[in-house]
């Protein structure tokens, strides 16, 4: 068989798989639309929703009871100005102000949003806020009261300092930063962007590469087997390796599009949320970009081959799904683990651990750090793992029982 004929067959297999797969609208939704919209929805719509909820809370008039025998006038004014409608009662007889005592039911049954107790004791003040943490109104009251008390405390401190004949600023801030704090960071904005992106892009890439390959892998192997299309395919003049390679190409292409769209959605969301000075383009050398592409490709070879092999081992779509879905943990845990590994002075062996190696490589490369020793280790180990996964997949594709049911 000529190599031209082989590549034509591989292309024909891949093309047919992609065409057939893309004709299912649910697939397009799962592979194209969801990844594209997931992060924009999460980062843009969700904050907008939170913002509107916060605005709703801000507009609320809250009802409180202030228990004090000597409520300072300026504090009372501040509470009123912050949307707190209150009545003043004398302090109850309690051992400590935070003990609810007879007031427990009033707060629990929501007849009021909270009780603020404040008492002057010689040279200082004591206070407590009784609130119901499961009530949003009560929580909001607590937050507003704390903010008002904080402001009032600052005012009290400054008054005391001035009364003592001291200068407020030099007393409270004897140590001051000189200049712009941001100027102290010598990392360029591109490096900072790389650092930020390195915290989630490898994670997204790993999880989405695996999860978006699940459906096509199953459909093209166990699905074919279940639908009875595999037997006709095995009677064709193509080797099983060509079949595997064609299917691998199709799954990798579908997964690649899904991952790319998800990253686009993620970058769009970040760009929308943050100012461009914070999330700029990472400053990457051509070599870094090339190595990023190689690492992703090796990872994709490994993951897709592994999934195709597991799916081909399965006798049905259901069985394949019940194996591939929990196997996501094999990617998820190393991916989460990798996020917390300190890259400064990291030992070389980390770059030889499956999954971890590629994710660490991506983190380093996104920060434009090219450490030759690390590159060699992750490249060689990734090649070995990708080769092993491909070998395992080829073993599964060469199994005779991939065509079952005798008659």
């Amino acid at each position: 068989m000529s190599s031209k004929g082989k590549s034509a067959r591989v292309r024909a297999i891949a093309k047919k798989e992609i065409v057939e797969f893309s004709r299912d609208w649910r697939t397009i939704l799962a592979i194209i639309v969801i990844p594209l919209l997931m992060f924009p929805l999460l980062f843009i719509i969700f904050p907008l929703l939170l913002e509107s909820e916060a605005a709703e809370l801000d507009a609320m008039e809250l009802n409180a009871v202030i228990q004090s025998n000597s409520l300072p006038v300026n504090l009372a004014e501040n509470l009123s100005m912050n949307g707190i409608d209150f009545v003043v009662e004398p302090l109850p007889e309690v051992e400590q102000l935070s003990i609810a005592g007879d007031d427990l039911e009033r707060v629990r049954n929501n007849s009021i949003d909270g009780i603020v107790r404040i008492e002057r004791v010689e040279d200082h003040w004591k206070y407590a806020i009784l609130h119901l943490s499961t009530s949003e109104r009560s929580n909001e009251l607590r937050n507003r009261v704390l903010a008002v008390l904080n402001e009032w405390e600052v005012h009290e401190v400054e008054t005391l300092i001035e009364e003592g004949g001291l200068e407020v600023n030099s007393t409270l801030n004897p140590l001051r930063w000189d200049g712009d704090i941001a100027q102290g960071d010598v990392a360029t904005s591109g490096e900072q962007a790389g650092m930020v992106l390195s915290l989630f892009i490898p994670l997204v890439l790993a999880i989405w590469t695996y999860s978006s390959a699940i459906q096509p892998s199953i459909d093209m192997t166990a699905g074919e087997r279940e639908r009875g299309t595999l037997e006709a395919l095995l009677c064709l003049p193509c080797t099983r390796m060509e079949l595997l390679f064609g299917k691998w190409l199709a799954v990798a292409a579908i997964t690649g599009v899904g991952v790319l769209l998800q990253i686009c959605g993620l970058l769009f969301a970040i760009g929308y949320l943050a100012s461009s000075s914070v999330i700029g383009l990472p400053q990457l050398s051509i070599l870094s970009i090339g190595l990023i592409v190689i690492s992703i490709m090796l990872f994709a070879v490994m993951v897709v081959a592994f999934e195709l092999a597991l799916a081909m081992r399965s006798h049905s779509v259901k069985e394949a799904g019940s194996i591939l879905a929990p196997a996501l943990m094999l990617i998820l845990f190393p991916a989460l683990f990798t996020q917390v590994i300190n890259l400064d002075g990291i030992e070389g062996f980390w770059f030889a651990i499956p999954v971890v190696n590629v994710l660490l490589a991506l983190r380093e490369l996104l920060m434009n750090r090219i450490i030759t020793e690390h590159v060699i280790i992750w490249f060689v180990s990734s090649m070995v793992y990708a080769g092993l996964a491909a070998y395992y997949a080829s073993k599964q594709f060469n199994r005779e029982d991939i065509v079952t049911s005798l008659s």
Partner: protein
Amino acid sequence: MVKTLLSLKGVSKKFGDIQALKPIDLDINSGEIVGLVGSNGAGKTTLLRLMAGVYNPTAGSVQLSNGQPVSSMRHELGVVPESTGLYSRLTAWENIRYHSRMHGVLDATSWARTEKFADHLDMKDHLGRHTKGFSRGMKQKTALLRALAHGPSILLLDEPTAGLDITSARTVRALVRQLRDEGGTVIYSTHHLSEAEQVCDRIVIIHNGELRADGSPSKLLESTTTHSLEDAYVSLTQDQARTRKEDEDRESTFSKWWRSLFTPRIPSSILGGEESE
């Protein structure tokens, strides 16, 4: 002079402990229609898959006349498997074209052949339709067109008339005979003796994985001293047919045990016993 196309020498097939096919010697000659007849689970499909190179024999060899393995002549094979094996999200023509491309045949060539046979099978108007909504008969015809589109010299047909109406089945049989007349070789699996009698030049009876008889219909009648093929078949296959349990046997012991754990026993009251209080 008869030319042997395909030679099976001592071919047997085992799946684990199951002897799916006991050693078989069989020559397939050029220009004949060979009927593989047997009950479900007899080993017909296993034999077809061995001939198609989907399975490797456990013992023996499946060779071409020149001694080459069968895998080297896959481009000469046209196969219609029992399940038809059509992709439901592709049109009938796309299914056909996909297989033809895998055979290295140009689209124009396969289209010309498809058009010709589609006329015979009354399928021309359906070639642009997705096969998802096809009836069993239409799927069967599409699979047949797909097997013919690249111009094979050997056709392996596994129950090709299953699910077809009487007229379509007759058309398929006529087409098979026409292909034979044009010099093609057809291996035709069926469990209908009458069909084998109508179509085949030679009948191979398989029972419980064994080749029980091989010859023309008249030769079979002669060798069994019977007056009908049905009587001949019965006399050759008197022992009870094995059950189809190969798939079940491939299941792991743990899977079987787990399944049995959640399978309630049939209450004795249903089986005729007294229900215990």
